[in-house]
């Protein structure tokens, strides 16, 4: 019955909406952490000191090769069991943020390498310190180069956020709403369909936004 199909959406629009915004907040929170930590790790990776580079390398290899769900369990269940007080929300954005930060660090690193070496040499010879060079010359350009890869990572975060909702953390995100409605109404297809639509709306929105940003800011090398 086509009418019932849409009913699942319209009858429960409040819940859908709430779930949608929970997902959005999750992604934003994780993105902030990912960018901050990712930038820091990228800086480590390109530092002139071998040990700092290795430290950054360890971070990247750890967080890129471990499953997000395992990380979530470690952060949410493991730390709590050891006595470190951490609430669901923090555990969620911390896990997703730290996980994505490893990828962001790699993306930034390749963005930095795309900056012509000559600029760095010129800057240093003009008397800028290493960190000033980084801050004023290299990073601004690096950021503009990596708009597209970072856009892909945001889309990945949107998809990964669903893992959080489906796991023990139970934050009432878009997928969770779909599951609850499925359980309540016995209508699997519409329940999951509308959840899928929600995710597609988000990923399409991000794709469009990234394209806009690219046309305005991106540096093509």
């Amino acid at each position, binding site marked *: 019955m086509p009418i019932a199909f849409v009913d699942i959406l319209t009858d429960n629009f409040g819940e859908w909406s709430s779930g949608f915004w929970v997902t959005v907040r999750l992604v934003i929170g994780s993105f902030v952490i990912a960018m901050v930590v990712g930038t820091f790790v990228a800086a480590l990776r390109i530092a002139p000191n071998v040990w700092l580079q290795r430290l950054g390398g360890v971070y990247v290899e750890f967080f890129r090769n471990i*499953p997000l769900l*395992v990380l979530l*369990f470690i952060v949410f269940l493991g730390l709590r*069991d050891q006595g470190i007080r951490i609430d669901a929300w923090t555990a969620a954005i911390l896990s997703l943020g730290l996980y994505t930060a490893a990828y962001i660090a790699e993306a930034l690193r390749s963005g930095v390498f795309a900056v012509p070496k000559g600029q760095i040499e010129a800057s240093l010879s003009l008397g800028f310190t290493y960190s000033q060079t980084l801050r004023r010359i290299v990073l601004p350009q690096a950021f503009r180069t990596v708009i597209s890869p970072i856009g*892909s*990572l945001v889309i990945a975060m949107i998809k990964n956020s669903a893992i959080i909702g489906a796991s023990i953390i139970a934050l009432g995100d878009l*997928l969770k709403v779909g*599951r609850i409605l499925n359980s309540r109404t016995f209508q699997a297809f519409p329940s999951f369909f509308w959840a*899928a639509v929600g995710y597609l709306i988000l*990923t399409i929105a991000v794709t469009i936004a990234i394209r806009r940003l690219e046309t305005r800011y991106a540096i093509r090398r």
Partner: protein
Amino acid sequence: MTAPAFIFDWVPAENNGRYLLEGFVINLEVAFVSLIAAMAFGLLLALLRLSRNRLVSFATGLWVDVFRNLPLVLLILFLTVLLKPVREAWENAAPDFLPESFQSGLVVGALAALILYNSAVLAEIMRAGILSLPRGQGEAASALGLTYAQSMRLVILPQGLRRMVPATVSQLITLNKDTTLVSLIAFQDVMRRGRSVVANAGNPFTGSKVEAPILEVFLFIGLLFIVVNLLLSRLSRRLEIREQKRSGTKLQRVEGLEDQIT
């Protein structure tokens, strides 16, 4: 009980370590099966996408773009519910030599989702690989009188797919990690075994003597994945270098696929 020192003394005790390792092998098996099937189906999708028929190309493109952008978890949960009849049929038909976890009907939902999702991602990887070949290749092939099918089989695909090896291994790493998601439908993998180990160890009701803190158990499981995935990425790098040496050209990295991170 909450000593911060990581002792991991539960690993050799009471079969815990072995139990988890067996579970881990289950995850790897799921990844392996999914990869093979996804590569086959993905190749089909890639070829359809490259079809000269506008409608086919468009429809396939739509399919691929939709499944690439959906959360894998959603597909797992959805297909598990949707494919209930298939699950039942499988449970009755499953051969006995399969591991216990694979005999459960839940494997149907898990594999279907993994294959559907990864075939879409791999389709894009393969398509990008094929498109990255110089036009000259295809033109030369037809100039030599090869049909479309022949030029695909003999010229384009071998070269295109070879370029995709690093990206495919990278996707295998992601696939390994994704197999943990099947635990969310109670498929008995390393994650579920981890929960059993934690609950069973040191609990007075089970007679077990050694405690296994959750943090340690999941760090152990995480380490299993990290080791295997690191080995895979080393392998990938070595393959890349060998390709470069062999063909003398720099292996083009296929960009824009960072969404592979899950």
